[in-house]
Protein backbone atom coordinates (compact mmCIF):
# COMPACT_ATOMS: atom_id res chain seq x y z
CA UNK A 1 0.00 0.00 0.00
CA UNK A 2 1.20 3.51 -0.82
CA UNK A 3 0.34 6.05 1.82
CA UNK A 4 1.17 9.71 1.35
CA UNK A 5 0.36 12.25 4.05
CA UNK A 6 0.75 16.04 3.79
CA UNK A 7 3.71 15.65 1.50
CA UNK A 8 5.43 18.98 0.88
CA UNK A 9 8.53 19.94 -1.04
CA UNK A 10 9.99 23.41 -1.17
CA UNK A 11 12.78 24.21 -3.63
CA UNK A 12 15.21 27.05 -3.13
CA UNK A 13 15.97 28.25 -6.62
CA UNK A 14 18.74 30.81 -7.19
CA UNK A 15 17.44 33.80 -9.09
CA UNK A 16 19.92 35.08 -11.65
CA UNK A 17 19.38 38.40 -13.33
CA UNK A 18 20.22 38.62 -17.02
CA UNK A 19 23.29 40.33 -18.45
CA UNK A 20 26.70 41.24 -17.10
CA UNK A 21 25.26 43.57 -14.48
CA UNK A 22 23.05 40.80 -13.16
CA UNK A 23 25.98 38.37 -13.09
CA UNK A 24 28.13 40.86 -11.15
CA UNK A 25 25.34 41.61 -8.72
CA UNK A 26 24.87 37.86 -8.22
CA UNK A 27 28.48 37.65 -7.04
CA UNK A 28 27.76 39.79 -4.02
CA UNK A 29 24.12 39.20 -3.31
CA UNK A 30 22.48 35.97 -4.32
CA UNK A 31 18.72 36.04 -4.45
CA UNK A 32 17.06 32.76 -3.69
CA UNK A 33 13.44 32.16 -4.48
CA UNK A 34 11.31 29.71 -2.54
CA UNK A 35 9.17 27.52 -4.77
CA UNK A 36 6.56 25.30 -3.18
CA UNK A 37 6.51 22.50 -5.79
CA UNK A 38 4.34 20.12 -3.78
CA UNK A 39 2.06 21.37 -1.04
CA UNK A 40 0.43 19.05 1.53
CA UNK A 41 -0.42 16.27 -0.91
CA UNK A 42 -2.17 13.25 0.62
CA UNK A 43 -3.47 10.07 -0.97
CA UNK A 44 -3.51 6.31 -0.60
CA UNK A 45 -3.09 3.70 -3.33
CA UNK A 46 -4.20 0.11 -2.77
CA UNK A 47 -1.91 -2.77 -3.85
CA UNK A 48 -2.44 -3.72 -7.48
CA UNK A 49 -4.08 -0.44 -8.47
CA UNK A 50 -3.10 1.54 -11.55
CA UNK A 51 -3.49 5.24 -10.85
CA UNK A 52 -2.99 8.16 -13.22
CA UNK A 53 -1.18 11.11 -11.74
CA UNK A 54 -2.08 14.04 -13.95
CA UNK A 55 -1.52 17.73 -14.18
CA UNK A 56 -0.12 20.47 -16.40
CA UNK A 57 3.63 21.03 -16.76
CA UNK A 58 5.17 22.24 -13.51
CA UNK A 59 2.20 21.01 -11.46
CA UNK A 60 4.39 18.96 -9.12
CA UNK A 61 3.89 15.47 -10.59
CA UNK A 62 7.53 14.60 -11.15
CA UNK A 63 8.58 16.12 -7.83
CA UNK A 64 6.00 13.91 -6.10
CA UNK A 65 7.19 10.83 -8.00
CA UNK A 66 10.77 11.63 -7.04
CA UNK A 67 9.81 11.79 -3.38
CA UNK A 68 7.87 8.54 -3.72
CA UNK A 69 10.87 6.83 -5.30
CA UNK A 70 13.31 8.16 -2.68
CA UNK A 71 15.20 10.58 -4.92
CA UNK A 72 14.08 13.65 -3.03
CA UNK A 73 13.77 14.29 0.66
CA UNK A 74 10.38 15.77 1.50
CA UNK A 75 10.47 19.16 3.20
CA UNK A 76 7.65 17.88 5.40
CA UNK A 77 4.98 15.19 5.45
CA UNK A 78 5.43 11.46 5.11
CA UNK A 79 5.45 8.69 2.53
CA UNK A 80 5.17 4.98 3.18
CA UNK A 81 5.53 2.46 0.34
CA UNK A 82 4.70 -1.05 1.48
CA UNK A 83 6.07 -0.08 4.88
CA UNK A 84 9.27 1.53 3.56
CA UNK A 85 10.32 5.16 3.91
CA UNK A 86 11.56 6.01 0.41
CA UNK A 87 14.21 8.64 1.18
CA UNK A 88 16.01 6.25 3.54
CA UNK A 89 16.72 4.34 0.29
CA UNK A 90 17.26 0.99 1.98
CA UNK A 91 17.92 -2.02 -0.19
CA UNK A 92 14.51 -3.49 0.72
CA UNK A 93 12.79 -0.40 -0.69
CA UNK A 94 14.90 -0.07 -3.83
CA UNK A 95 14.25 -3.67 -4.78
CA UNK A 96 10.51 -3.10 -4.27
CA UNK A 97 10.20 -0.25 -6.75
CA UNK A 98 11.17 0.78 -10.24
CA UNK A 99 10.98 4.23 -11.79
CA UNK A 100 10.87 4.50 -15.55
CA UNK A 101 11.28 7.97 -16.99
CA UNK A 102 10.45 8.65 -20.62
CA UNK A 103 13.15 11.29 -20.78
CA UNK A 104 15.97 9.56 -18.90
CA UNK A 105 17.51 6.19 -19.41
CA UNK A 106 19.36 3.67 -17.33
CA UNK A 107 20.58 1.63 -20.31
CA UNK A 108 24.32 1.95 -20.87
CA UNK A 109 24.49 4.07 -24.00
CA UNK A 110 27.36 2.41 -25.85
CA UNK A 111 26.66 -1.21 -24.91
CA UNK A 112 23.83 -3.54 -25.91
CA UNK A 113 20.82 -3.67 -23.53
CA UNK A 114 21.82 -7.20 -22.51
CA UNK A 115 24.83 -5.74 -20.66
CA UNK A 116 22.59 -3.46 -18.60
CA UNK A 117 20.28 -6.41 -17.90
CA UNK A 118 23.21 -8.55 -16.73
CA UNK A 119 24.43 -5.74 -14.50
CA UNK A 120 20.96 -5.38 -12.98
CA UNK A 121 20.84 -9.12 -12.37
CA UNK A 122 23.95 -8.82 -10.20
CA UNK A 123 22.95 -5.57 -8.50
CA UNK A 124 19.44 -6.76 -7.61
CA UNK A 125 20.72 -10.25 -6.60
CA UNK A 126 18.32 -11.95 -9.01
CA UNK A 127 18.52 -15.72 -8.95
CA UNK A 128 19.91 -16.92 -12.34
CA UNK A 129 16.90 -19.20 -13.03
CA UNK A 130 14.41 -16.42 -12.13
CA UNK A 131 16.40 -14.01 -14.27
CA UNK A 132 16.26 -16.25 -17.32
CA UNK A 133 12.55 -16.85 -16.87
CA UNK A 134 11.69 -13.16 -16.36
CA UNK A 135 13.92 -12.06 -19.23
CA UNK A 136 12.37 -14.66 -21.55
CA UNK A 137 8.89 -13.45 -20.57
CA UNK A 138 9.73 -9.79 -21.07
CA UNK A 139 11.54 -10.44 -24.35
CA UNK A 140 8.46 -12.26 -25.64
CA UNK A 141 5.95 -9.69 -24.35
CA UNK A 142 7.88 -6.69 -25.62
CA UNK A 143 9.24 -8.37 -28.72
CA UNK A 144 12.85 -7.54 -27.85
CA UNK A 145 14.58 -10.53 -29.43
CA UNK A 146 16.44 -8.66 -32.14
CA UNK A 147 17.33 -5.69 -29.92
CA UNK A 148 19.19 -7.36 -27.07
CA UNK A 149 22.60 -7.39 -28.71
CA UNK A 150 22.55 -4.09 -30.59
CA UNK A 151 24.29 -1.11 -28.96
CA UNK A 152 21.69 1.04 -27.22
CA UNK A 153 22.77 4.11 -29.18
CA UNK A 154 21.67 2.35 -32.39
CA UNK A 155 18.11 1.69 -31.17
CA UNK A 156 15.14 3.90 -32.02
CA UNK A 157 13.40 5.83 -29.23
CA UNK A 158 10.58 3.28 -29.09
CA UNK A 159 12.97 0.32 -29.02
CA UNK A 160 14.97 1.97 -26.26
CA UNK A 161 11.83 2.57 -24.22
CA UNK A 162 10.85 -1.10 -24.49
CA UNK A 163 14.34 -2.09 -23.30
CA UNK A 164 14.12 0.50 -20.49
CA UNK A 165 10.91 -1.14 -19.29
CA UNK A 166 12.56 -4.54 -19.47
CA UNK A 167 15.58 -3.33 -17.45
CA UNK A 168 13.27 -1.83 -14.83
CA UNK A 169 11.12 -4.95 -14.47
CA UNK A 170 13.77 -7.68 -14.26
CA UNK A 171 13.71 -7.63 -10.46
CA UNK A 172 9.90 -7.85 -10.54
CA UNK A 173 9.13 -4.65 -8.60
CA UNK A 174 5.87 -4.52 -6.65
CA UNK A 175 5.55 -0.81 -7.33
CA UNK A 176 6.15 0.76 -10.70
CA UNK A 177 6.41 4.53 -11.15
CA UNK A 178 6.06 5.53 -14.78
CA UNK A 179 6.93 9.12 -15.60
CA UNK A 180 5.68 9.90 -19.11
CA UNK A 181 6.73 6.51 -20.48
CA UNK A 182 5.17 7.09 -23.90
CA UNK A 183 6.55 10.59 -24.51
CA UNK A 184 7.77 11.15 -28.05
CA UNK A 185 6.71 7.69 -29.29
CA UNK A 186 4.65 7.11 -32.41
CA UNK A 187 1.02 6.07 -32.04
CA UNK A 188 1.64 2.35 -32.68
CA UNK A 189 4.48 2.19 -30.13
CA UNK A 190 2.37 4.08 -27.59
CA UNK A 191 -0.35 1.47 -28.01
CA UNK A 192 2.16 -1.39 -27.65
CA UNK A 193 3.55 0.00 -24.41
CA UNK A 194 0.08 0.77 -23.07
CA UNK A 195 -1.03 -2.78 -23.71
CA UNK A 196 2.12 -4.14 -22.08
CA UNK A 197 1.66 -2.00 -18.97
CA UNK A 198 -1.99 -3.09 -18.65
CA UNK A 199 -1.09 -6.78 -19.00
CA UNK A 200 1.82 -6.44 -16.58
CA UNK A 201 -0.47 -4.81 -14.02
CA UNK A 202 -3.07 -7.59 -14.40
CA UNK A 203 -0.63 -10.49 -14.45
CA UNK A 204 1.72 -9.47 -11.63
CA UNK A 205 -0.58 -7.37 -9.47
CA UNK A 206 2.07 -4.64 -9.40
CA UNK A 207 0.92 -1.24 -8.18
CA UNK A 208 1.39 1.39 -10.86
CA UNK A 209 1.49 5.16 -10.63
CA UNK A 210 1.58 6.79 -14.04
CA UNK A 211 2.16 10.37 -15.11
CA UNK A 212 1.42 11.22 -18.71
CA UNK A 213 0.17 13.96 -20.95
CA UNK A 214 -1.45 11.45 -23.31
CA UNK A 215 -5.07 10.96 -22.45
CA UNK A 216 -5.18 7.69 -24.40
CA UNK A 217 -2.76 6.29 -21.79
CA UNK A 218 -5.07 7.40 -19.01
CA UNK A 219 -8.22 6.04 -20.60
CA UNK A 220 -6.62 2.68 -21.29
CA UNK A 221 -4.84 2.22 -17.97
CA UNK A 222 -6.21 4.27 -15.11
CA UNK A 223 -9.67 3.73 -13.63
CA UNK A 224 -8.59 6.19 -10.94
CA UNK A 225 -6.85 9.52 -11.40
CA UNK A 226 -5.24 12.03 -9.08
CA UNK A 227 -5.14 15.54 -10.50
CA UNK A 228 -2.48 17.87 -9.23
CA UNK A 229 -2.06 21.53 -10.03
CA UNK A 230 0.22 24.14 -8.49
CA UNK A 231 1.42 21.50 -6.06
CA UNK A 232 -1.93 20.57 -4.58
CA UNK A 233 -4.40 17.75 -5.25
CA UNK A 234 -7.47 19.04 -7.14
CA UNK A 235 -9.22 15.74 -7.65
CA UNK A 236 -8.75 12.16 -6.50
CA UNK A 237 -11.25 9.57 -7.65
CA UNK A 238 -12.71 7.59 -10.51
CA UNK A 239 -11.96 8.78 -14.01
CA UNK A 240 -15.63 8.23 -15.03
CA UNK A 241 -16.85 10.49 -12.28
CA UNK A 242 -14.36 13.20 -13.18
CA UNK A 243 -15.59 13.16 -16.75
CA UNK A 244 -19.27 13.14 -15.73
CA UNK A 245 -18.82 15.93 -13.18
CA UNK A 246 -16.70 18.15 -15.38
CA UNK A 247 -18.52 17.77 -18.67
CA UNK A 248 -22.01 16.54 -17.81
CA UNK A 249 -22.96 16.09 -21.45
CA UNK A 250 -22.56 13.00 -23.61
CA UNK A 251 -21.51 13.38 -27.20
CA UNK A 252 -24.00 12.01 -29.73
CA UNK A 253 -22.74 11.70 -33.29
CA UNK A 254 -25.45 11.30 -35.94
CA UNK A 255 -25.29 10.51 -39.62
CA UNK A 256 -28.51 11.39 -41.36
CA UNK A 257 -29.79 10.29 -44.73
CA UNK A 258 -29.91 13.95 -45.84
CA UNK A 259 -28.18 17.09 -44.49
CA UNK A 260 -30.58 18.53 -41.84
CA UNK A 261 -31.17 22.22 -41.15
CA UNK A 262 -29.53 23.23 -37.82
CA UNK A 263 -32.87 24.27 -36.32
CA UNK A 264 -34.16 20.69 -36.72
CA UNK A 265 -31.43 19.53 -34.31
CA UNK A 266 -31.69 22.31 -31.74
CA UNK A 267 -34.48 20.71 -29.64
CA UNK A 268 -32.36 17.62 -28.95
CA UNK A 269 -29.29 19.26 -27.38
CA UNK A 270 -26.45 21.66 -27.98
CA UNK A 271 -25.28 21.39 -31.60
CA UNK A 272 -21.53 21.22 -31.45
CA UNK A 273 -20.77 20.59 -35.09
CA UNK A 274 -22.64 20.07 -38.37
CA UNK A 275 -20.79 19.00 -41.47
CA UNK A 276 -22.95 17.80 -44.36
CA UNK A 277 -25.04 14.92 -43.09
CA UNK A 278 -22.97 14.43 -39.91
CA UNK A 279 -23.96 16.24 -36.74
CA UNK A 280 -22.46 16.19 -33.26
CA UNK A 281 -24.79 17.00 -30.38
CA UNK A 282 -24.03 17.45 -26.69
CA UNK A 283 -26.82 15.88 -24.66
CA UNK A 284 -27.15 15.94 -20.85
CA UNK A 285 -26.51 12.48 -19.38
CA UNK A 286 -29.82 12.43 -17.46
CA UNK A 287 -31.89 12.85 -20.61
CA UNK A 288 -29.73 10.76 -22.91
CA UNK A 289 -32.04 7.75 -23.31
CA UNK A 290 -35.29 9.62 -24.11
CA UNK A 291 -33.37 12.01 -26.39
CA UNK A 292 -31.94 9.13 -28.42
CA UNK A 293 -35.37 7.56 -28.69
CA UNK A 294 -36.78 10.87 -29.98
CA UNK A 295 -33.87 11.35 -32.39
CA UNK A 296 -34.49 7.94 -33.89
CA UNK A 297 -38.19 8.53 -34.37
CA UNK A 298 -38.15 12.21 -35.41
CA UNK A 299 -35.13 12.31 -37.74
CA UNK A 300 -33.95 10.15 -40.69
CA UNK A 301 -30.99 8.67 -38.78
CA UNK A 302 -28.66 6.37 -40.75
CA UNK A 303 -26.13 5.90 -37.95
CA UNK A 304 -25.74 7.00 -34.35
CA UNK A 305 -22.99 6.70 -31.76
CA UNK A 306 -22.60 7.94 -28.20
CA UNK A 307 -19.37 8.63 -26.38
CA UNK A 308 -17.80 10.84 -23.73
CA UNK A 309 -16.23 14.12 -24.71
CA UNK A 310 -12.45 13.74 -25.27
CA UNK A 311 -10.48 13.56 -22.03
CA UNK A 312 -8.33 16.44 -23.26
CA UNK A 313 -11.44 18.66 -23.07
CA UNK A 314 -12.13 17.43 -19.54
CA UNK A 315 -8.58 18.23 -18.41
CA UNK A 316 -8.61 21.62 -20.09
CA UNK A 317 -11.85 22.45 -18.33
CA UNK A 318 -10.60 21.24 -14.92
CA UNK A 319 -7.34 23.13 -15.06
CA UNK A 320 -8.92 26.28 -16.50
CA UNK A 321 -11.44 26.23 -13.68
CA UNK A 322 -8.58 26.04 -11.20
CA UNK A 323 -6.68 28.94 -12.67
CA UNK A 324 -7.27 32.11 -10.72
CA UNK A 325 -9.21 34.67 -12.82
CA UNK A 326 -7.10 37.17 -14.69
CA UNK A 327 -6.79 40.63 -13.22
CA UNK A 328 -9.49 42.85 -14.74
CA UNK A 329 -7.16 45.55 -16.01
Amino acid at each position, binding site marked *: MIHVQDLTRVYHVPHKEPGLRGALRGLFKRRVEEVRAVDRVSFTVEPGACVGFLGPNGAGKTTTL*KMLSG*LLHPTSGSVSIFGHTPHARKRGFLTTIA*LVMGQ*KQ*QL*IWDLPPRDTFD*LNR*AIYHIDPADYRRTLDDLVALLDLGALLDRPTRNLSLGERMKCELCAALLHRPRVLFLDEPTIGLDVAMQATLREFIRDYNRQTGATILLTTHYMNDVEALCPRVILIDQGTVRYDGALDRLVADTLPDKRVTLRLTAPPPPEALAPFGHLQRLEGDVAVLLVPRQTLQPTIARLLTDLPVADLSVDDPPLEDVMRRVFLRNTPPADPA
Partner: protein
Amino acid sequence: MRHPLRIAAALLRVGVAEALVYRAQIIIWMLATTLPLVMLALWTTLAAEGPLQGYSEDTFIAYFLATILVRHLSECWAVWAINEEIRAGSLTLRLLRPLHPLWAYAGQVLGDRPLRLAIILPLVGLAFLLHDGPDLTADPLHWLAFPVAVAGAWLLQFAVHVLIGALAFWTEQSLALWSVWFGLWALLSGYLVPADLLPRWLQHLNAWLPFHAMLGLPVEIALGRIPAHDLLPHLALQAAWCLLLGAAALALWSRGVRRFEAYGA
Protein backbone atom coordinates in the same frame (compact mmCIF):
# COMPACT_ATOMS: atom_id res chain seq x y z
CA MET B 1 30.06 -16.60 -5.79
CA ARG B 2 28.82 -14.30 -3.08
CA HIS B 3 26.82 -11.21 -4.01
CA PRO B 4 29.50 -8.49 -3.57
CA LEU B 5 31.94 -10.45 -5.72
CA ARG B 6 29.27 -11.06 -8.33
CA ILE B 7 28.46 -7.34 -8.40
CA ALA B 8 32.16 -6.41 -8.61
CA ALA B 9 32.64 -8.86 -11.48
CA ALA B 10 29.57 -7.49 -13.32
CA LEU B 11 30.74 -3.88 -12.83
CA LEU B 12 34.20 -4.70 -14.11
CA ARG B 13 32.77 -6.58 -17.10
CA VAL B 14 30.75 -3.50 -18.03
CA GLY B 15 33.75 -1.24 -17.38
CA VAL B 16 35.97 -3.34 -19.65
CA ALA B 17 33.28 -3.46 -22.36
CA GLU B 18 32.88 0.33 -22.21
CA ALA B 19 36.65 0.84 -22.30
CA LEU B 20 36.81 -1.28 -25.43
CA VAL B 21 34.13 0.88 -27.04
CA TYR B 22 36.11 4.01 -26.11
CA ARG B 23 39.46 2.39 -26.96
CA ALA B 24 40.56 5.14 -29.35
CA GLN B 25 39.80 7.83 -26.79
CA ILE B 26 41.67 5.98 -24.04
CA ILE B 27 44.70 5.40 -26.25
CA ILE B 28 44.75 9.12 -27.15
CA TRP B 29 44.54 10.03 -23.44
CA MET B 30 47.42 7.67 -22.78
CA LEU B 31 49.54 9.14 -25.53
CA ALA B 32 48.69 12.60 -24.22
CA THR B 33 50.24 11.74 -20.85
CA THR B 34 53.55 13.13 -22.01
CA LEU B 35 54.50 15.18 -18.97
CA PRO B 36 56.73 12.46 -17.46
CA LEU B 37 58.58 12.26 -20.80
CA VAL B 38 59.07 16.03 -20.83
CA MET B 39 60.36 15.89 -17.26
CA LEU B 40 62.57 12.95 -18.21
CA ALA B 41 64.18 15.03 -20.97
CA LEU B 42 64.56 18.01 -18.66
CA TRP B 43 66.09 16.17 -15.71
CA THR B 44 68.45 14.00 -17.78
CA THR B 45 69.78 17.18 -19.44
CA LEU B 46 70.35 18.71 -16.01
CA ALA B 47 72.02 15.52 -14.77
CA ALA B 48 74.26 15.23 -17.84
CA GLU B 49 76.99 17.21 -16.11
CA GLY B 50 76.92 15.12 -12.97
CA PRO B 51 74.42 13.49 -10.59
CA LEU B 52 71.88 15.72 -8.80
CA GLN B 53 71.63 14.69 -5.14
CA GLY B 54 72.27 11.06 -6.03
CA TYR B 55 70.14 11.07 -9.21
CA SER B 56 72.19 10.28 -12.32
CA GLU B 57 70.87 10.40 -15.87
CA ASP B 58 70.09 6.68 -15.69
CA THR B 59 68.34 7.02 -12.36
CA PHE B 60 66.08 9.69 -13.83
CA ILE B 61 65.28 7.46 -16.80
CA ALA B 62 64.29 4.58 -14.51
CA TYR B 63 62.35 6.95 -12.25
CA PHE B 64 60.22 8.46 -14.99
CA LEU B 65 59.63 5.11 -16.73
CA ALA B 66 58.28 3.76 -13.44
CA THR B 67 56.28 6.99 -13.05
CA ILE B 68 54.55 6.38 -16.38
CA LEU B 69 53.68 2.84 -15.31
CA VAL B 70 52.32 3.82 -11.89
CA ARG B 71 50.46 6.80 -13.33
CA HIS B 72 48.52 4.51 -15.67
CA LEU B 73 47.89 1.93 -12.96
CA SER B 74 46.57 4.51 -10.47
CA GLU B 75 44.93 6.92 -12.94
CA CYS B 76 41.39 8.05 -12.12
CA TRP B 77 38.89 10.20 -14.03
CA ALA B 78 35.85 9.90 -11.79
CA VAL B 79 35.73 13.63 -10.98
CA TRP B 80 34.48 14.47 -14.49
CA ALA B 81 31.84 11.72 -14.52
CA ILE B 82 30.61 12.65 -11.04
CA ASN B 83 30.52 16.35 -11.82
CA GLU B 84 28.65 15.84 -15.07
CA GLU B 85 26.07 13.44 -13.63
CA ILE B 86 25.29 15.68 -10.67
CA ARG B 87 24.90 18.78 -12.83
CA ALA B 88 22.83 17.06 -15.52
CA GLY B 89 20.71 15.15 -12.99
CA SER B 90 21.51 11.74 -14.46
CA LEU B 91 22.83 10.66 -11.05
CA THR B 92 19.13 10.01 -10.41
CA LEU B 93 19.34 6.71 -12.22
CA ARG B 94 22.28 5.51 -10.15
CA LEU B 95 20.47 6.46 -6.95
CA LEU B 96 17.51 4.29 -7.88
CA ARG B 97 19.62 1.14 -7.85
CA PRO B 98 20.39 -0.79 -4.68
CA LEU B 99 24.11 -0.19 -5.13
CA HIS B 100 26.15 2.72 -3.81
CA PRO B 101 26.96 4.89 -6.86
CA LEU B 102 30.62 5.08 -5.82
CA TRP B 103 30.98 1.36 -6.53
CA ALA B 104 29.67 1.96 -10.03
CA TYR B 105 32.13 4.83 -10.63
CA ALA B 106 34.98 2.69 -9.30
CA GLY B 107 33.99 -0.15 -11.63
CA GLN B 108 33.88 2.19 -14.62
CA VAL B 109 37.31 3.64 -13.85
CA LEU B 110 38.97 0.30 -13.13
CA GLY B 111 37.37 -1.25 -16.20
CA ASP B 112 39.88 0.51 -18.44
CA ARG B 113 42.90 -0.99 -16.63
CA PRO B 114 43.24 -4.12 -18.82
CA LEU B 115 43.37 -1.98 -21.97
CA ARG B 116 45.82 0.47 -20.42
CA LEU B 117 48.06 -2.33 -19.19
CA ALA B 118 47.98 -4.13 -22.51
CA ILE B 119 49.46 -1.00 -24.09
CA ILE B 120 51.71 0.42 -21.41
CA LEU B 121 53.28 -2.75 -19.94
CA PRO B 122 55.04 -3.84 -23.16
CA LEU B 123 56.20 -0.27 -23.86
CA VAL B 124 57.60 0.39 -20.39
CA GLY B 125 58.95 -3.18 -20.19
CA LEU B 126 60.79 -2.77 -23.47
CA ALA B 127 62.18 0.60 -22.41
CA PHE B 128 63.53 -0.93 -19.19
CA LEU B 129 65.10 -3.78 -21.19
CA LEU B 130 66.81 -1.39 -23.59
CA HIS B 131 67.83 1.01 -20.87
CA ASP B 132 71.27 0.40 -19.46
CA GLY B 133 71.38 1.36 -15.81
CA PRO B 134 69.38 1.21 -12.58
CA ASP B 135 66.48 -1.13 -13.06
CA LEU B 136 63.38 -2.26 -11.26
CA THR B 137 63.98 -3.84 -7.87
CA ALA B 138 64.61 -7.57 -7.64
CA ASP B 139 63.75 -7.73 -3.94
CA PRO B 140 60.61 -9.89 -3.35
CA LEU B 141 59.61 -7.80 -0.34
CA HIS B 142 59.45 -4.70 -2.54
CA TRP B 143 57.49 -6.64 -5.14
CA LEU B 144 55.01 -7.64 -2.44
CA ALA B 145 54.72 -4.04 -1.29
CA PHE B 146 54.36 -2.65 -4.82
CA PRO B 147 50.76 -3.79 -5.60
CA VAL B 148 49.67 -2.73 -2.12
CA ALA B 149 51.15 0.73 -2.68
CA VAL B 150 49.57 0.99 -6.15
CA ALA B 151 46.16 -0.02 -4.77
CA GLY B 152 46.57 2.55 -1.99
CA ALA B 153 47.59 5.20 -4.54
CA TRP B 154 44.50 4.47 -6.61
CA LEU B 155 42.22 4.57 -3.57
CA LEU B 156 43.63 7.96 -2.57
CA GLN B 157 43.13 9.26 -6.11
CA PHE B 158 39.57 7.96 -6.14
CA ALA B 159 38.79 9.50 -2.73
CA VAL B 160 40.05 12.91 -3.89
CA HIS B 161 38.06 12.61 -7.12
CA VAL B 162 34.92 11.86 -5.10
CA LEU B 163 35.63 14.71 -2.66
CA ILE B 164 36.08 17.28 -5.41
CA GLY B 165 33.41 15.77 -7.68
CA ALA B 166 30.85 15.82 -4.84
CA LEU B 167 31.35 19.57 -4.44
CA ALA B 168 29.17 19.81 -7.56
CA PHE B 169 26.25 19.18 -5.20
CA TRP B 170 26.90 22.72 -3.90
CA THR B 171 28.78 24.62 -6.57
CA GLU B 172 29.14 24.68 -10.32
CA GLN B 173 32.85 25.47 -9.96
CA SER B 174 34.14 22.18 -8.56
CA LEU B 175 36.28 21.44 -11.62
CA ALA B 176 38.20 24.70 -11.06
CA LEU B 177 39.22 23.34 -7.68
CA TRP B 178 40.31 20.19 -9.44
CA SER B 179 42.87 22.20 -11.45
CA VAL B 180 44.29 23.68 -8.22
CA TRP B 181 44.52 20.20 -6.70
CA PHE B 182 46.20 18.80 -9.80
CA GLY B 183 48.87 21.52 -9.68
CA LEU B 184 49.69 20.70 -6.06
CA TRP B 185 49.59 16.98 -6.73
CA ALA B 186 51.91 17.23 -9.76
CA LEU B 187 54.47 19.14 -7.71
CA LEU B 188 54.37 17.13 -4.49
CA SER B 189 53.54 13.58 -5.65
CA GLY B 190 56.79 13.03 -7.55
CA TYR B 191 55.13 13.44 -10.95
CA LEU B 192 57.29 16.40 -12.03
CA VAL B 193 60.18 16.03 -9.64
CA PRO B 194 61.25 13.16 -7.38
CA ALA B 195 60.10 13.98 -3.86
CA ASP B 196 63.66 13.84 -2.45
CA LEU B 197 64.77 16.61 -4.79
CA LEU B 198 62.28 19.09 -3.30
CA PRO B 199 63.66 21.76 -0.92
CA ARG B 200 64.40 20.28 2.48
CA TRP B 201 61.60 22.15 4.32
CA LEU B 202 59.06 21.04 1.70
CA GLN B 203 60.25 17.44 1.99
CA HIS B 204 59.59 17.54 5.75
CA LEU B 205 56.12 18.91 5.20
CA ASN B 206 55.40 16.58 2.27
CA ALA B 207 56.34 13.54 4.34
CA TRP B 208 53.08 13.97 6.26
CA LEU B 209 50.85 14.88 3.32
CA PRO B 210 49.00 12.37 1.07
CA PHE B 211 50.61 13.43 -2.25
CA HIS B 212 53.70 11.22 -2.13
CA ALA B 213 51.57 8.16 -1.31
CA MET B 214 49.55 8.80 -4.49
CA LEU B 215 52.45 8.26 -6.91
CA GLY B 216 55.99 8.65 -5.58
CA LEU B 217 55.66 5.86 -3.01
CA PRO B 218 54.88 3.03 -5.48
CA VAL B 219 57.44 4.43 -7.95
CA GLU B 220 60.19 4.44 -5.33
CA ILE B 221 59.17 0.97 -4.13
CA ALA B 222 59.36 -0.36 -7.72
CA LEU B 223 62.86 1.03 -8.02
CA GLY B 224 63.88 -0.26 -4.60
CA ARG B 225 64.70 3.24 -3.41
CA ILE B 226 62.88 2.81 -0.13
CA PRO B 227 64.79 0.64 2.36
CA ALA B 228 62.93 -2.54 3.35
CA HIS B 229 62.63 -1.45 7.00
CA ASP B 230 60.92 1.78 5.90
CA LEU B 231 58.26 0.06 3.79
CA LEU B 232 55.83 -0.58 6.61
CA PRO B 233 55.76 2.99 8.01
CA HIS B 234 55.24 4.37 4.52
CA LEU B 235 52.41 1.94 3.77
CA ALA B 236 50.88 2.64 7.18
CA LEU B 237 50.85 6.37 6.48
CA GLN B 238 49.29 5.66 3.09
CA ALA B 239 46.61 3.49 4.72
CA ALA B 240 45.90 6.22 7.28
CA TRP B 241 45.37 8.76 4.50
CA CYS B 242 43.14 6.26 2.66
CA LEU B 243 40.98 5.94 5.75
CA LEU B 244 40.86 9.66 6.38
CA LEU B 245 40.17 10.80 2.82
CA GLY B 246 37.87 7.82 2.18
CA ALA B 247 35.77 8.68 5.25
CA ALA B 248 35.69 12.36 4.26
CA ALA B 249 34.64 11.46 0.70
CA LEU B 250 31.84 9.19 1.94
CA ALA B 251 30.62 11.79 4.43
CA LEU B 252 30.62 14.58 1.83
CA TRP B 253 28.93 12.32 -0.71
CA SER B 254 26.08 11.38 1.60
CA ARG B 255 25.53 15.01 2.64
CA GLY B 256 25.50 15.94 -1.03
CA VAL B 257 23.01 13.26 -1.99
CA ARG B 258 20.65 14.52 0.71
CA ARG B 259 20.88 17.92 -0.92
CA PHE B 260 20.58 16.57 -4.44
CA GLU B 261 17.52 17.97 -6.05
CA ALA B 262 17.88 16.11 -9.32
CA TYR B 263 17.36 19.19 -11.47
CA GLY B 264 16.64 18.25 -15.03
CA ALA B 265 15.95 14.63 -14.13
